[in-house]
């Protein structure tokens, strides 16, 4: 049996990154991701890696840009306020088709907000990580184990599609301790980084890493080509989990820590004779639209309830995914408040069979 380690979610991401061959980590202190940076600072030097504290989030993401352009596996981590600062660099990284992993351990916002867990950066992560037509692959773990597993996958996805990948966690997942197994996973076939700036050695034309295209038609082509890549990602990389959806009348849609609370609420609802089920998106971009739409086509499913730690962000994607075929409601707590199973159950009872 593989050895299990009891560790915090933040530490699990860090350890999984090192095991995935991450050679450089650039960060800036911010709660609630601090353990991740500290784990890197302690362990990278012992394992042929480098961990460097940058002067700002802006500098950290640009160090990521440089290291990625040089062909290395590289990561940065922060929380919402830091992502806002990094968004310039993220856009350049997308425009330059560079792979890297960016972690957001979410806290409450806007502004300085708070330091308790939230999911209020959903829209930012899935729709607005930088200026221009662009997306990142966004993975949403729901356990410390998944923090580790999805970190490894994030590095592979980044290299395969030459795109930054975001791990969207939250303060609860980052801080809580659970057993985690880092057993070696079969790695996917990775393309050669023949585009990297490593010095041409006199043996090839000089490589250029760039996001500037003065001719509109040329720029348009680069964007259109990138969106073809997004289509491929949508076809091949969507991840989700279904729980008791088969005979369900009401489907809770929830991701991350909220999905675990929702699972308890679903079980409690079942005990009361309410046919509730859970749909958990694991990829937030690409969003599991087709899979949700297929559920909406089922006659027994009447209602969708999006449960999020925000004022209603993912709920709009649920509505779009099912073209408003069925009723869609939202229940959320925000500002760092975590919903309880009872609150969710109350809302299940409220919305099952339509709003009363």
């Amino acid at each position, binding site marked *: 049996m593989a050895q299990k380690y009891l560790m915090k979610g933040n530490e699990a991401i860090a350890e999984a990154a090192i095991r995935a061959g991450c*050679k450089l980590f650039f960060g800036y202190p911010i709660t609630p991701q601090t353990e991740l940076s500290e784990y890197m600072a302690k362990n990278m030097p012992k394992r042929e890696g480098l961990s460097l504290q940058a*002067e700002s989030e802006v*500098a950290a993401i640009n160090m990521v840009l*440089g*290291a990625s352009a*040089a062909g290395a596996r590289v990561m940065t981590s922060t929380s919402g306020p830091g992502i806002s600062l990094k968004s310039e660099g993220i856009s*350049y990284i997308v425009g330059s088709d560079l792979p890297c992993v960016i972690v957001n351990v979410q806290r409450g916002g806007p502004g300085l907000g708070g330091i308790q867990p939230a999911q209020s950066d959903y829209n930012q992560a899935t729709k607005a990580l930088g200026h221009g037509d662009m997306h990142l692959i966004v993975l949403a773990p729901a356990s410390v184990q998944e923090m580790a597993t999805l970190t490894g996958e994030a590095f592979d996805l980044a290299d395969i599609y030459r795109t930054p990948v975001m791990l969207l966690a939250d303060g609860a997942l980052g801080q809580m301790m659970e057993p985690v197994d880092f057993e070696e996973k079969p790695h996917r076939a990775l393309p050669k980084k023949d585009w990297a700036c*490593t010095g041409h050695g006199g043996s090839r034309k*000089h*490589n250029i890493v760039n996001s500037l295209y003065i001719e509109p038609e040329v720029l348009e082509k680069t964007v259109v080509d990138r969106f073809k890549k997004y289509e491929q990602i949508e076809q091949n990389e969507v991840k989700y989990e279904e729980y008791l959806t088969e005979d369900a009348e009401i489907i809770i849609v929830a991701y991350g820590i909220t999905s675990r609370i929702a699972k308890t609420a679903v079980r409690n609802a079942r005990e009361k004779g309410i046919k509730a089920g859970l749909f958990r998106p694991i990829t937030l971009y690409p969003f599991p639209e087709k899979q949700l739409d297929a559920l909406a086509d089922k006659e027994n499913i009447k209602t969708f309830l999006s449960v999020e730690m925000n004022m209603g962000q993912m709920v709009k994607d649920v509505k779009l995914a099912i073209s408003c075929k069925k009723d869609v409601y939202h229940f959320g707590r925000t500002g760092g408040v975590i919903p309880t199973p009872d609150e969710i159950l109350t809302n299940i009872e409220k919305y099952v069979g339509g709003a009363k």
Partner: protein
Amino acid sequence: MVVFDKPKALTETPFHYCPGCTHGIVHRLVAEAIDGLGLEDNTIGIAPVGCSVFAYNYFNCDMIEAPHGRAPAVATGVKRADPSKTVFTYQGDGDLAAIGTAETVHAGARGENITIIFINNCIYGMTGGQMAPTSLIGQVTTTTPYGRDPNLQGSPLRICEMLSTIDGVAYAERVSVDNVKNVLATKKAIKKAFEIQQKKIGLSIIEVLSTCPTNWGLSPTKATEWLRENMIPYYPLGVYKDKTKEEGEQK
């Protein structure tokens, strides 16, 4: 017999720079230094936003285009990923001394073994002649139409002087390309900066006083005169930091 050839470290792409602009001279000097030290195969250059944003088309080494002001951070990432490479940035005054001040200062503080070529022409060229952090008091630009007023827009930054106070900065020299003698001195300074990088003793920066005839509204000849009469008195030429000398003195 060829006595004057194109450096290998430059591509065949013609420069887009305005007539009289000194970017062309400095590009050539950087390329000559790379050639002279045999570094072309092993060098990564970084050009962020500004008139020199297309430098990736001109230098025949691997090139990265960085966000505005962020070249020293990008260079840090490249150099830390593989310290055996030679890494240089080529930045203007708005890029290095305004939006990228923090990146510049902290690359120095960390003693990054990179070389910064800093073009100071007292103006934003690419966007059409706005005030730079190095614009002189009284200088008329499109955003200081009544002249730069220290009470309103503050005073111009002296970057080499400032960076020379930082322990991690190994070499800081201000040069000019307004005449042949100074061009030759600039060539020597740039070569020295790359040699310092090879010694791995910290950041090297060469500030090159340059002209922008187009946005200064002067002919190329008048522009070099303006540089001599106005810029050099405020930005004196010279070596502001040289760790190789300091070490020598200690011995």
